[in-house]
C-alpha cells in the first residue's frame, strides 16, 4: 500500500515536472538604443528565445545577432561586420535565476518586481549581471520586462575614435518577452 502511494506521488510529480513549470517564447523582443551627440542608433530583434522555469526560477535567453534590424542598412552591416562580428559569434545568450523567487506567487495574477542575476554572453565575453525587472503573471502567460544598461567595453566591442561621437559607450537594452506555458 505504501509503495503504491509513493508510485502515484512520483507519477504525479513527473507529470507536473514535465508540463507545469516551464514558460517559453521564440518571439521575444529585445531593443538596443545608443544615444550619442551626433546620432541615436536603435535596433530591434523580434526573434528572441526565452524560457523560464517557475519552480526553480531559472531564466534563459538566446538570440541571433543577425536578427537585429536597424533603420539604416549600412549600420546593420557595420554592426554585424565590424562591431559584433556575427559571422564569428552568431549568438548572444543569458543564463540566470530569479533571485527573489519566494516573493512571486505564480498562482496569483499580478505584477511582481523581480531581480534576475546571471551570466550575459555577447561576442566572446561573459559578464555577471544583476538587473531589476517585472514579471506580470497572467493565466498561462507571464510577461517579463526589463530595461538596463551595458558597457560595450565589457564585451570587447571597441569604438574607433572616428565614430566616438556617433556611438555611446553605454547601450540601453529593453527586454520584453511574452512567455507561454508549455
Amino acid at each position: 500500500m505504501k509503495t503504491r502511494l509513493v508510485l502515484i506521488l512520483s507519477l504525479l510529480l513527473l507529470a507536473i515536472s514535465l508540463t507545469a513549470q516551464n514558460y517559453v517564447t521564440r518571439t521575444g523582443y529585445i531593443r538596443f538604443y545608443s544615444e550619442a551627440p551626433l546620432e541615436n542608433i536603435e535596433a530591434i530583434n523580434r526573434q528572441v528565445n526565452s524560457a523560464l522555469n517557475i519552480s526553480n526560477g531559472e531564466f534563459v535567453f538566446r538570440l541571433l545577432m543577425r536578427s537585429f534590424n536597424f533603420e539604416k542598412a549600412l549600420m546593420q552591416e557595420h554592426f554585424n561586420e565590424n562591431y559584433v562580428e556575427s559571422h564569428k559569434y552568431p549568438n548572444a545568450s543569458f543564463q540566470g535565476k530569479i533571485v527573489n523567487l519566494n516573493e512571486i506567487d505564480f498562482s496569483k495574477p499580478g505584477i511582481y518586481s523581480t531581480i534576475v542575476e546571471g551570466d550575459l554572453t555577447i561576442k566572446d565575453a561573459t559578464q555577471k549581471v544583476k538587473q531589476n525587472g517585472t514579471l506580470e503573471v497572467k493565466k498561462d502567460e507571464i510577461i517579463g520586462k526589463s530595461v538596463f544598461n551595458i558597457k560595450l567595453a565589457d564585451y570587447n566591442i571597441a569604438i574607433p575614435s572616428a565614430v566616438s561621437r556617433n556611438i555611446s559607450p553605454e547601450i540601453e537594452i529593453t527586454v520584453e518577452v511574452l512567455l507561454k506555458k508549455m
Partner: protein
Amino acid sequence: MGILALILLLLSTVAQSQDLFDLFGDDEPTTEFAFATFKTTRIVNGQSVENPPFGELKFVISHHFGSINNGPYNLWGLDQSTIRLGLEYGLTERLAIAVGRSSFEKTFDGFAKYKLLRQSSGAMNMPISVSLFSGIYLNSLEWRYPERENYFSSRLSYVHQVLIARKFSNTLSFQITPTFVHKNLVEKIADPNDIFAIGYGGRVRLTNRITFNAEYYQLLTSETAKKFNNMLSLGFDIETGGHVFQLHFTNAQPMFERAFITETRGEWLNGDIFFGFNIVRVFTIRKPKL
C-alpha cells in the same frame, strides 16, 4: 514495485532540471543572404554586385588627378583633375537607378542595376550573386565633325554587363564581369561599334574597416585592343560611419563604364597612371519599419 517507484521518482527530478535552452528546439532553417560582398557599389572604377538598399541614396564623388608621369611641373598630376558626380538610389531591394555627370567629354550618364540572384546559404543555397547592369551615356561636347550631320543619337553609347560575384569568406570576394559596349557613332569606319570585354575584380579585407581592391578589364575586340589599353586599377576602401573612401591608382582617366573599359590610354609601365578617389556618402531617404 518499490524499485519502479524509485526510478520514477528519480526520473521526475531529472526532468525538472532539464536544460531550459533545449526547450527552444532546433532553429528553423533560415536563408542567410551574403551581405557586403563589396563595401560599396564600385570595386574601383567598375560596378560591383552591390546596390544601395531600398530607400537609400548614395552620393558618389569620383575624382582622378592627372597622370603621375607629368612630373613636378604639374605636381605629379595633382594640378589636373577629372571628376564625376553621381547619385544612386535603391528603388527596391533589388533595383537601383542612378544618374551622373562626368567632366570627361562632358558626359551625362544614367544606369539601372538589378540584383538577379543573391548568394545565400541555409534553407536556400545559392553559390553566387548575379546582377545585371545597363547604362546609357550622352556626350554633350560641342559637335566636332562639321562634315557629319549632328544627330542626337550619334552622341549616345551603351554598356551592358552581367556581374557575377562570390563572397568566398569574410575576407575574400571575387567578381567576373562579361561586358558588351555599343557606340552609335565611331570615329573611323574601321572602328567597331560593338565591343566585348571581360572584367575581373576582387577584394581582400585587411582590417574590419579597410579592404584592398583590384580590378582588371580585358578588351576582347581586337580592333579596339590595338588602339587602347586594358584597364588595371588597385586601391583601398576605407570606411568610417556613413562614408566610404576609395583611394586608388588606375591607368584610366575617365570614370564611366564605356570610357574606362574601351578608351583607356594610360600605361602602368610608363607611370602614365592616375591617382584618384571616390567618396560615397549615404543618405537614408525612406526609413524601414523596425
